[in-house]
């Protein structure tokens, strides 16, 4: 199978993630979409690693997972706090800061 297909897949995943970010209101879902985008990148890295015959890409993928985990920690903390004060996880409700 042509490794390029994985790249196409990763592009599709990335686009799906991006679309999700734009379309979903729930902060958690938005955040999950971002995770999806990161994983699309991971897929690309791994694929390119395979294509290039170097291991760097795979290492990056591991690091990304770790970083994504950190992001989850921080992100959930923020989302939970804001949910506790507002009783809403909709990103559209948070628009006191504007103009």
């Amino acid at each position, binding site marked *: 199978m042509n490794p390029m297909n994985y790249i196409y897949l990763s592009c599709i995943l990335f686009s799906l993630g991006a679309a999700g*970010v*734009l*379309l979903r209101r729930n902060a958690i879902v938005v955040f999950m979409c971002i995770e999806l985008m990161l994983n699309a990148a991971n897929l690309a890295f791994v694929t390119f690693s395979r294509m290039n015959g170097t291991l760097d890409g795979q290492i990056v993928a591991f690091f990304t997972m770790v970083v994504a985990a950190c992001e989850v920690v921080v992100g959930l903390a923020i989302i939970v706090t804001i949910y506790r004060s507002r009783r809403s996880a909709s*990103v*559209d409700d*948070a*628009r006191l800061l*504007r*103009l």
Partner: protein
Amino acid sequence: MSLGTSDTLVYLIAIPLFSSAFLLLGGRALDRVGHLIGTAASASSFVVALIELNKMLGRDAESRGVTQHLFTWINVGSFQIDATLLLDQLSICFVLLITGVGTLIHIYSISYMAHDIDRRRFFAFLNLFIAAMLLLVLGNSYLNLYVGWEGVGLASYLLIGFWNQKPTYATAAKKAFVANRVGDVGLSLAVMIAFVQFGAVTFDGVAKGIEAGSASSTALNAMGAAILLAAVGKSAQFPLQAWLGDAMAGPTPVSALIHAATMVTAGVYLISRSNFVFDNAPTAQLLVVIVGAVTLLFGAVIGMAKDDIKKALAASTMSQIGYMILATGLGPAGYAFAMMHLLTHGFFKAGMFLGAGSVMHGMNDEVDMRKYGALRKVMPITFATFGLGYLAIIGIPPFAGFYSKDKIIETAFNAGGSKGIILGCVTLLGAAITAFYMTRVMLMTFFGTKRWDSAAHPHESPWLMTVPMILLSIGSITTGFIFSNGDRLKNFLAPVVDKHHHEHETELLAPIVVTGLAMFAVAIGISIALAKYSRKTIPASAPTDVTVWTKIARRDLLQDDFNETVFMRPGQSLTRVLAFLDKRVVDGAVSGVGAMTLRLAGDLRKTQTGYVRSYALLILLGTVAILAAILVVTV
């Protein structure tokens, strides 16, 4: 003509100048002696002038001119102007007239202005005028002359507006200044042309340059026209004549000195002084003649319709200067006669103005001749001196005006061809009208019935006023004969204004015929006036059932209406439009850019919706744009 040097010329100017400054800076402390200091200064200047005349007459006819270098005034590259004075035959005539008549008028003013709280200032201004006028005639270059030229304009402005608490007087002063400024433009341009064409602006330098042929005839005609413009402004010639009548707002001695005897004749001086230009600029010369001829009639016509004695005299001045200008336009033959008429006119017109002042003095400053009448009995000296001036101005032999005017008429006829005939007729017509309106003035003022206001108690003026009048009237009797006898003045002036000894043109009419015609014209004028004003009683207010022509003449031949319609109204509109445009368009553009930026800012601000998803969309769009761009760049 070789020029000597003299180191005393500067005193002519310096004495009145410092006196003026002293009087102005001295303040109220000098109020009690100011008039004496001023008169003394003028008299001292006159004495210096007499000494200079004496010295000059002692020199050979060809080297009578003297110069005095004072200091370098302006020196930039090839533009070098020295403050140098030049006294030659032409200027000495003026110097004597200015200081002589000037001193008499100073004396007259001591009494005339005795009750004015600002008499000291009045004398300071008179002295300033004397100094400026002397600088005008003594400067050796056009630019030095220009300083004096504007200086007399300033003095004239200050003196016309001497009683400027009265708004119309202040306006009159302003009008005079502005009209003069129009003329000044001409003089400025003349200087520029001279500098560019000849690299020099001294009279001598320009004359030599012309002789060397370094200027095209176009340039010379342009320079001549520019000089004429200057003369027209200063000498109240058509079309810049409108200010002179209003200038009568000034105290009467001012009218006598500045607006009759001296300043207004500066144009004649300028043209005569620039004879080398006009002799080589036929077109400009023709313009001079036309201006002179038109003004001559213009002034005369206005003179016929005026009931204000000073304005009638002013109109007459305008007309008489028209004669002089016309004469200067006739080339070398005319300069001397123009000068002669200028000098005689200086005497008789100054005398008449002082006479008018004397009448006003006795009549509570009433100027309307319709309120006069039969004054000859109560003011005999004034009547006598005014009468002598009258005889002189209408050209009755052997009074001064006869000699000078007759010569001009004669020269006009001799100008050649149809031009000669037209000019001759114009001058004759002018003489007739002059006779008419001056007779009218005489009749309305001194003869007929009393039409005085009940408050008026006319009386003869004190001796300080009558003596100058008497002296001037002596001048109006004698000067004509003295100057013309044996062509004395003409020969005296010849080295300056007629260097090349042009041959006279053939005479169209014999001199005696011209004289006869002139006498006839005068006689007609007098008789019409007698017929019209001596028998009937004169109404105390001007009749209103007059022809439209009379109405026009009364309105100064619509000169003010013309200026108002053609210059002032459009000017005012333009000013308003510009003020509006400045606010709305020029500044509006600036604030418009500001307002536009503000509006743009307001609009762009709305992109900051506060929705995090719209920000994300912005990021995505930006990404797409960058991707597209980078791929486009690649392809």
